[in-house]
């Protein structure tokens, strides 16, 4: 897709990138217990006996979490494994009450798949690339250590302990920070469409482990490093850039890349070593004997498939067929929320082109000014449809609609009520318009003469004057017609 190269002293270098994305599965309760997954609760308020690994406690799989993983797999056209199994990954840490994480090493629930990414999803001519996905497996999240609560002690918050994650492992098919960014954006978009993860990177619902290595173009794969827990797309791209350059500098100065785990420091914009391969844990994976293998039957798979929404690529094609420009279709489908908003407008009977134009210019502009997201929009699709309906049936003009929208944003009032109250209804009263035109022509005899001697551009001046005189409420088409007649 993009020819990303690092210029070193010894020539060009290619970057090879693979991502392991941890996505928190959207579910009411945890992967193996009934505790809530709610974000931001008091520490240790969402902890069951199972989450705290009390003696004799046993995990019971949450079907909804498995369902979400399967639906996600289907959305990336991946192989769904009808038989999968949970394994224990053993290590000691204070945020891991069981002393092991329940994960899936040997038999993940989702196998090979792929997603297609474009460097610029809003540009229909941007080249595309298929990024392979090796697997998706389901596993438990750990708790959180808090080191800033006490001078000599660390505290543990187990609210996240046992929350379900999907680990989505890409093939090392990514070859630039931009591609990595595009991949993560597309993946997030798919997850949000499917509803299997909210994709909220700030809250940690999605984070990436970034595997990077460098090599001479077409050469043998180099030694890779893994930068852990990068929690924004921008940071990930910066981490890749830094890490690839670091590796090139290291190799060119006679050193060698060490296989190790690194951390990205967003303040210093650099990665640094966390632990080397020698310190790596021996996780002693083995099948969790507390759990039976997961077997998926036809009915379950059928339900998963039937519950999948229309996905971004299919949606974009359909929007173009509705007559939208490729650009508009791309913008409207990039995020699930935008597409759903747009479709809500259509459901209210708004014309597709009118809806897309209004959404992209008026609504986005207004939200931008207010610093709000689409979810926080003060105007909902139903209210917007009422406004657009008034334009469509000629009750108000486009310019009046802008004013009405402003008032809606401020007051929350309905469009019709505003139009009624402020007397903004468009007039089709030709007599009134003709009277105003006559007045304007009388007051601007010189300009009438100029126009008649061929200065066509002045037509706009007359339209403006007439509209002003009508306080914007006249039907622009009628003004045009009447002016043409009067000016001859």
């Amino acid at each position, binding site marked *: 897709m993009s020819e990303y190269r690092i210029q070193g002293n010894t020539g060009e270098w290619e970057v090879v990138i693979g991502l392991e994305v941890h996505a928190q599965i959207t579910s009411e309760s945890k992967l193996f217990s009934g505790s809530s997954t709610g974000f931001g609760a008091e520490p240790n308020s969402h902890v069951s006996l199972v989450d705290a690994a*009390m*003696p*004799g406690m046993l995990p019971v799989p949450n079907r909804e979490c498995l369902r979400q993983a399967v639906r996600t797999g289907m959305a990336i056209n991946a192989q769904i494994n009808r038989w999968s199994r949970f394994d224990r990954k*053993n290590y000691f840490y*204070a945020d891991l009450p069981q002393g092991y994480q329940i994960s899936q090493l040997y038999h993940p629930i989702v196998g090979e798949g792929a997603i297609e990414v474009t460097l610029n999803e809003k540009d229909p001519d941007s080249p595309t690339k298929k990024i392979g996905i090796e697997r998706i497996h389901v596993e438990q999240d750990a708790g959180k250590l808090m080191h800033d609560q006490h001078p000599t002690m*660390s505290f543990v918050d187990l609210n996240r302990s046992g929350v379900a994650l999907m680990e989505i492992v890409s093939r090392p098919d990514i070859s630039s920070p931009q591609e990595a960014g595009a991949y993560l954006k597309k993946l997030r978009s798919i997850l949000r469409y499917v509803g299997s993860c909210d994709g909220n990177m700030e809250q940690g619902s999605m984070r990436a482990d970034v595997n990077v290595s460098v090599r001479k173009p077409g050469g043998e794969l180099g030694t890779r490093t893994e930068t852990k827990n990068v929690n924004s797309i921008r940071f990930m791209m910066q981490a890749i850039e830094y890490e690839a350059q670091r590796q090139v500098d290291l190799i060119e100065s006679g050193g060698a890349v060490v296989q190790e785990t690194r951390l990205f420091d967003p303040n210093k914009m650099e990665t640094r070593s966390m632990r080397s391969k020698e310190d790596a844990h021996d996780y*002693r994976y083995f099948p969790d004997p507390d759990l*039976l293998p997961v077997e998926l039957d036809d009915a379950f798979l059928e339900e998963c498939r039937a519950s999948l929404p229309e996905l971004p690529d299919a949606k974009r094609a359909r929007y173009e067929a509705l007559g939208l420009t490729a650009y508009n279709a791309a913008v409207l489908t990039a995020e699930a929320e935008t597409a759903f908003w747009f479709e809500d407008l259509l459901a209210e009977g708004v014309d597709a082109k009118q809806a897309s134009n209004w959404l992209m210019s008026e609504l986005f502009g207004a939200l931008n000014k207010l610093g709000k997201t689409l979810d926080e929009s003060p105007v909902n699709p139903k209210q917007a449809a009422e406004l657009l309906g008034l334009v469509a049936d000629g009750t108000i003009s486009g310019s009046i609609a802008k004013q009405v929208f402003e008032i809606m944003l401020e007051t929350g009032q309905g469009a019709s009520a505003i139009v009624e109250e402020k007397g903004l209804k468009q007039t089709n009263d030709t007599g009134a318009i003709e009277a105003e035109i006559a007045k304007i022509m009388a007051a601007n005899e010189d300009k009438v003469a100029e126009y008649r001697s061929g200065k066509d551009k002045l037509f706009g001046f007359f339209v403006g004057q007439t509209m002003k005189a009508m306080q914007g409420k006249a039907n622009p088409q009628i003004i045009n017609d009447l002016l043409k007649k009067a000016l001859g």
Partner: protein
Amino acid sequence: MTDFSRLGVAAIRDGVANGEFKAVEVAEALNARVAAAKALNAFIVETPEMAVAAAQAVDADRAAGKPLGKMAGVPIGMKDLFCTEGVQTTAASHMLEGFVPTYESTVSANLWKAGAGMLGKLNLDQFAMGSSNETSYFGNVISPWRRNNGDNAALAPGGSSGGSSSAIAARLCPAATGTDTGGSIRQPAAFVGISGIKPTYGRCSRWGVVAFASSLDQAGPMARDVRDCAIMLEAMAGFDPKDSTSLDLPVPAWEAALNSDLKGKRIGIPREYRLDGIDEDIAKMWDNGIAWLKDAGAEIVDISLPHTKYALPAYYIIAPAEASSNLARYDGVRFGLRDLPEGAGLQDMYAATRAAGFGEEVRRRIMIGTYVLSAGFYDAYYTQAQKVRALIARDFENAWASCDLILAPTAPSAAFGLGEKNADPLSMYLNDVFAVPASLAGLPAMSVPGGLDKQGLPLGLQIIGKALDEQAVLNAGLAIEQRSGFTAEAGEWW
């Protein structure tokens, strides 16, 4: 006046139901026996007030004409591996000394619901790891039995359910819970001349039972006769949605269907269990058992379980592997012992806590388990052991083509003296040789008394059945019980 210590589960239940005596009388009598038998060290915690409270509730229910449960009025001992709400649960370890659960295990809750009462928490091998009850942090349990040579040596009650076996044999309680991972119900039952059944894996919920090896652990009843085992197993068993490996099946009416007529049943005698140098008394008892079952109408067939000799090594890979992971939660962070040396960090705390909290046998098994799961050894040990496990299960499947039940000794010897086998873990592990195959295959298996050896010590006969066919196992046990004439008792020396 009735000697309540001589009554079994059925007799107490029926006596209470018929109004022959009050449940409270039974509870008080047994509380007194428990209190007077401290020399056996069978109990870690005594809960006389709970036994009385449960009995009072049953008496009140009876007076009010309410229906009574399967175990109404029966005071029992609870192996201290079952978490009991508000009562210290230790798994006989220093690690959990003082740990008081806020929850009740499913099996114990089922028993209380059925009207049973708790006399106390029974001693066991630490984390159920051991065959002699010598690994308990709270000291050895002593068997009430003595050899007939007058040496008065303290004998092992078997393990890991040694507190259970000793207490029942000493008539401190009519029945007790046990758990069986590789023989921990059957071998101690055999050592003290009582009955005990490990049901099919999944019959009894593991929820709230301190885990040793999840794929093998199974709770079951221990009592002085087969009927009592049947009654108590009915009360303990049942589907539990909190245990993913629990069987979603109704609990059969085992007691009502007891029938010692074995006509049409074929009993397999596995030739591989006739080890070279098998104890003469054991061999004789086995032959007696064969004769009794024949007498009950069964047909005896010779069968082969060709992978038997690999069962013990496979077991001692799989069980420690699971244990090494199951016991990782005892880390000093959230409950139980915490040993935090001055200036220690997290890793130091783990090391100090686990070194202090686990006994030698537990540490040994954690190390074996960690080793067999580690990189480079996993395939050679764990994967191989799992294959053996599958072959053992297949051996049984093949055997069922020619028989309905299997008869074998429970253990290769009678009870040994305390301290006799500690020095050599391997000889201790060998005690499980006959018990382990049924555990690996998840099959129901029972031990019933088969007679005494030359030293006057009890020996056990083991009946192994098809998965879910506890009924046939119990029926064969009953047939043996009716013919063996086993009435021997330990003298009350304590």
